[in-house]
């Protein structure tokens, strides 16, 4: 790569400056041959590198699916670890093509911060975790408590709102990363740890004795987490959004990583045929190969498979599907029709 060389990069940067901004993200990605995906610096189950630097997790699976859909190869992803501080700038500046980092879709983030959330891949809500021996069973009993909270997120605003509306006070203990929050909470530096319920479950699962901690029943906010792309690049937004919906539809119609090749040869169900490119040319409409959904589902399975493999009940994190079940199962995962 030429761009890695100091002067080379500066020169290239200077020369290619003018044209680059106007071109669509899709063209950039195709030209580059790799998708730059902004992820968490390390949250078990969602995005974390192993000893060899291979990333895995629920969010990472979506990056892989997008890379598979666009470039045909789930390995063609460059993971850019972003902190709560740097994530939006990384997206706005074009450092990453999409941001899959437990990011809540909010009004101001779409309008003021100029990003788009083409889909929601996890419906979450903010909860609290406390020690069992503290005797607290409801968030309403947390008056006067010290609460560990990660900075730079929506959670600190929710927390302030919640305690205010319930006429309670609290002592915020700001922390920089999830790892630090765990340390402080485990050491007893705070009475409660608050973040998205999924994050709490992931955190609790990793404790030496998880049974000593409980997650309180109250969910104090709506946290629709989803992939984010830059405002205004609708084509790229479509690709990210519909790749995700392909995974959801895959689960609905029983298309799995194991049988997708088989089904791609043609089935009785015209919806599956359209989805998998056997019929029609949905892929071409958004500028990707016609077998995009096949590749995306093959990358890590359909939505259900990804969920079970990374954060489902059989994993140490042990999250129930809940709101994230298919709409047919009483959840909110509802893929629009592929036609």
């Amino acid at each position: 790569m030429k761009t890695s060389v100091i002067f080379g990069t500066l020169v290239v940067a200077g020369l290619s400056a003018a044209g680059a901004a106007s071109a669509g993200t899709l063209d950039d990605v195709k030209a580059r041959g790799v998708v730059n995906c902004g992820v968490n610096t390390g949250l078990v189950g969602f995005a974390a590198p192993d000893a060899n630097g291979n990333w895995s997790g629920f969010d990472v699976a979506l990056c892989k699916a997008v890379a598979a859909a666009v470039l045909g190869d789930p390995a063609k992803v460059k993971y850019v670890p972003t902190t709560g501080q740097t994530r939006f700038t990384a997206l706005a500046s074009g450092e990453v093509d999409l941001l899959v980092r437990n990011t809540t879709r909010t009004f101001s983030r779409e309008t003021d911060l100029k990003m788009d959330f083409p889909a929601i891949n996890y419906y979450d809500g903010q909860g609290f975790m406390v020690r069992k021996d503290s005797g607290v069973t409801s968030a309403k009993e947390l008056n006067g408590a010290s609460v560990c909270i990660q900075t730079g997120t929506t959670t600190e605003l929710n927390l302030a709102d919640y305690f205010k509306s319930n006429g309670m006070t609290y002592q915020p203990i700001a922390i920089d990363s999830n790892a630090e929050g765990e340390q402080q909470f485990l050491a007893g530096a705070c009475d409660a740890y608050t973040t998205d319920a999924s994050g709490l479950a992931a955190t609790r699962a990793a404790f030496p004795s998880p049974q000593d901690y409980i997650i309180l029943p109250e969910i104090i906010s709506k946290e629709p987490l989803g992939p984010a792309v830059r405002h205004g690049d609708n084509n790229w937004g479509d690709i990210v959004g519909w790749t995700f919906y392909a995974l959801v539809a895959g689960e609905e119609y029983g298309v799995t990583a194991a049988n997708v090749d088989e089904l791609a040869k043609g089935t009785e169900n015209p919806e599956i045929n359209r989805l998998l490119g056997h019929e029609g040319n949905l892929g071409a409409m958004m500028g990707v190969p016609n077998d995009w959904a096949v590749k995306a589902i093959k990358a890590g399975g359909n939505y259900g498979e990804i969920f079970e493999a990374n954060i489902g009940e059989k994993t140490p994190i042990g999250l129930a599907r809940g709101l994230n079940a298919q709409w047919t199962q009483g959840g909110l995962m509802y893929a629009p029709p592929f036609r």
Partner: protein
Amino acid sequence: MIGKTSPSAPYVRKLMLDPLPPPAKASGVSLWLREKLFSSWGNAFLTVIGIGLIWLLVSHFAPWFLHGVWNADSLAACRKTIATTWGEGASGACWAVIRARWNQFIFGFYPAEIYWRPVLTFVLFLLALAPVLFSQLPRRLLWGSLVYPLVAIWLLWGGSVWPVAMIGVGFVIGAVLWRVLVAKNAILAALAAVVVPVLFWLFLTGPIDDLLGKVLPVSIQSVPSRQFGGFLLAIVLGAGGIVMSLPLGIVLALGRRSDMFLVKMFSIGFIEFVRGVPLIALLFVASLLLNYFLPPGTNFDIILRVMILVTLFSAAYIAEVIRGGLAALPRGQYEAADALGLDYWKAQRLIVLPQALKISIPGIVSSFIAMFKDTTLVTFVGLFEPLKSIPDTIRADFAWKGIYWEFFVFVGAIFFIINFGMSRYSMYLERKLKRDNR
């Protein structure tokens, strides 16, 4: 009567008595104890406190160190081994994590099959540094040191050899132009030596790279900056920052001492601005703002952006160090240069800078130590430095969740060894230079 000595002859003793050993109180251990430890009530008090402190530290940490476990694949396994070997409730370090993740601490996510490249780069680094540090070595070796940065860039980042070679060619063009033209007109030569290489890099490098890449493809596996991490990242940032900031620092130092009002003001403004803000703010500029300041659509990797800001940061500090060196030079040297009729640049190049830089080397080494320590701050812009990010990553693995102290001790020890070595070197140098000047 034994002899016939005459009564007037003086008595001469032939046999020397063996000296008596000094009294027990004035020698050996007891003297040492009395003089060094218990010379007064106050001193005795301090000694007792000191011994108490040492005892406190040792009694708390020694068991933890000694009970360390080197072979385990998770924290739970470590705890089990400690409990079975030393009994329930015994504390012990789980060094196994360092063993298991050693490569990650040293190389970050650098591809495992090409670890030899950073290792080779580091060995070459020491070789290239040797002629700079030790003046006994032949001066010709300095040419190797000059070429070294390009070799290092190529070895670390990989890819085609040509872009790196073209950077070198640019410098060579500049040097040749200077040599040829300096006899005719120094200012023209300086101008040509700067402008032509820049034009070369801007407009000719790209096509030549492509051409040569097709005709003679010499390339090794390229490694994106994102995969750099651990001490590799710290050393690349620290050493790269210092090396690149040296020329800039010299220019700034000369600018600050210049007679020209505007040049002086700009230099002072830059130096004081950079020295007045924390590095972390500049790192945020690198990660959040640099994209605003560059033409729309420009985007290059975060390590490079951080490196630019780190370079500017250390340039301001280096400039102050060199300014100190310039100020320490006896006034006679400047006057002698003037008396010889040398112009400004000749005087700086031949008389002033060689001496001033030599005096400044200890200060530059201190700047490097500071810089090297400060590279840990890049954790806050999402880079995998060894002190905070790598441990956080390791803790994101279920097997090693909950380990803290081992990382502090290990990373702290490595930083200590490197920095302590460098500070000793700079002290040695300071003593040596002092002798030279007398």
